């Protein structure tokens, strides 16, 4: 039984999740790979897992992508 996808998604944890500290440490490297179209998800699966689950780090990633993409003006 799984009629509660939102609850299921929230409670589901990914063992590859590296946590905030490691994700923040490498965020500039990961963001540049993503922005340049490189296969960042294959190289950093733990960061991908973390950014999917952590709202604040995901927000920071979106902000950094916007900054290096020049979409902040």
């Amino acid at each position, binding site marked *: *039984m*799984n*009629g*509660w*996808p*939102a*609850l*299921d998604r*929230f*409670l*589901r*944890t990914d*063992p590859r*999740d590296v*946590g*905030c*500290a490691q994700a*923040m440490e490498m*965020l*500039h*490297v990961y*963001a*540049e790979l993503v922005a340049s179209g490189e296969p960042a998800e294959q190289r950093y699966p733990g960061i991908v897992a973390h950014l999917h*689950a*952590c*709202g*604040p*780090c995901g*927000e*920071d990633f*979106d*902000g*950094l992508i*916007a*900054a*290096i993409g020049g*979409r*902040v*003006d």
Partner: protein
Amino acid sequence: MQKALVVPAGLDAESAGWVRALAGPGPRREAALARLHELLVRIARGEAARRGPRLAITGPELDDLAFQAAADALVAITGKLGQFRGESRFTTWAYKFVIFEVSAKIGRHFWRHPAVRLDAEDWDRLPARFGADPAHQAEWGDLFAALRRAVDTELTSRQREVFVAIVLNDVPLDTLVMHLGSNRNAIYQVLFDARRKLRAALAADGYLPGDLVRGS
């Protein structure tokens, strides 16, 4: 005596120029600092504006937040210049600091905001938080009762405190970090462990599939 900063090998010319100028002496360094500050203010303003529509911060207050974030980021960047390893362009590395500063300052803003409820426990909000339709309470009543039971019986007091603040009371994680005098990684890990325990409990009771549960 100040230790000479070594420019990482393989840097692109622009990044190497930043590092040399910021690590060097005199007017060249001053000019680089001024240019970097200008860039950081632009990025901070852009980031504050990007997040602004979802925040109750506008106008001069948001602009002030951006300026403070840029100033603090500049201090952090110059203090950590020796840690720049050249894994990205210098500006990408630098922008990361100002994005983090904007985040932290928004968290601090809500910590000071009286509307943030840190201790209340409004369990009636829980079903709606996960998209449950009030008209179909018969379908989800047992599930959320089991979830509440698991929160009370499976979690440590710290895990329960973090779960209640973030999930029930919608307290932003960065705001809770300020309140608890902790850091984002530690609070995320507490919530991560709480989520894992709660899912295991609900799976054991047959409310959620158990095949995705790892460990205990």
